[in-house]
């Protein structure tokens, strides 16, 4: 009988904890929807706030762990050193906000409440804003003390662009493998991120100018 690989062990671990990951994802989404409900109900006609959640897929989790090793290879002699639970984004929610000046308000609102108040902040860098994207990691101890969850609050245009771009650049789909290290693709992505940020900044100026009462 062939020996079980590190990947086999990780798949088994993943499916053992999958019910917990799902429960954490439901909790995360429900908490975010509940806390942001007052904000959502007071949106202007051009404003949007959408919550999208996901459970990290098994092969994506293994690929991420493998990618953290030099040479992208697991050491079969140290199989006990790898665990799916080392990943911090097994359950994740992305709050998409338009325009982006609603971002700070949304983050402040979420961070007022338990458990998000104590979650660890690790801004995600992107070319459109040197402060990066607000991203937080933490646990729902009543549900699971081992499955880590993540939420981000993202300008909607960037978030929607990333949905298409990330699935092309980060999913293991054969021919596109490794495209994330391609200088040409990275430079195009930077240009898109800067352009989308400029569009939002300009839109915010337009709204501000047009929402002022006409001068006598």
């Amino acid at each position, binding site marked *: 009988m062939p020996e079980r690989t590190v990947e086999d062990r990780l798949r088994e671990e993943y499916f053992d904890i999958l019910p917990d990951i799902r429960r954490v994802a439901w909790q995360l989404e429900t908490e975010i929807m509940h806390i942001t409900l007052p904000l959502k109900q007071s949106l202007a006609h051009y404003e949007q706030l959408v919550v999208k959640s996901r459970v990290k897929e098994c092969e994506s989790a293994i690929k991420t762990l493998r*990618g953290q090793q*030099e*040479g*992208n*290879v697991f*050491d*079969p*002699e*140290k199989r006990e050193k790898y665990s799916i639970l080392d990943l911090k984004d097994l359950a994740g929610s992305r709050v998409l906000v338009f325009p982006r000046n609603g971002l700070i308000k949304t983050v402040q609102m979420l961070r007022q409440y338990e458990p998000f108040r104590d979650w660890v902040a690790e801004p995600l860098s992107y070319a459109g804003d040197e402060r990066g994207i607000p991203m937080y990691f933490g646990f729902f101890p009543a549900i699971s003390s081992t499955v880590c969850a993540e939420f981000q609050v993202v300008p909607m245009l960037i978030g929607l662009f990333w949905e298409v771009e990330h699935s092309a650049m980060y999913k293991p789909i054969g021919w596109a*493998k*490794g*495209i994330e*290290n391609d200088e040409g693709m990275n430079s195009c992505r930077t240009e898109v991120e800067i352009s989308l940020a400029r569009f939002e900044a300009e839109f915010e100026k337009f709204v501000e100018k047009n929402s002022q009462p006409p001068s006598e």
Partner: protein
Amino acid sequence: MKKSEVLFAANYRYNFDRDLYVNYAAKKAFSIEFVDDHSEEDLRRGIQESPNGNGWIFYFNVPPSDSIRRQLEQVLESVHR
């Protein structure tokens, strides 16, 4: 000069599957972690180091174990064939 350009100029190619800069003829490979954490001078020293007969030389932050070395050698040899 960017560190990656130093490697490209010395006939290293980026292996997207393994995130390694590889010179298949010289049988040498640098991990991206090693490249990130070491100076251009360290890279040049590695590039100039004599090849290791039939075996591969891996420039890693954490020297690869025998089993990792075997797996990588197998993969890199099959790419080169």
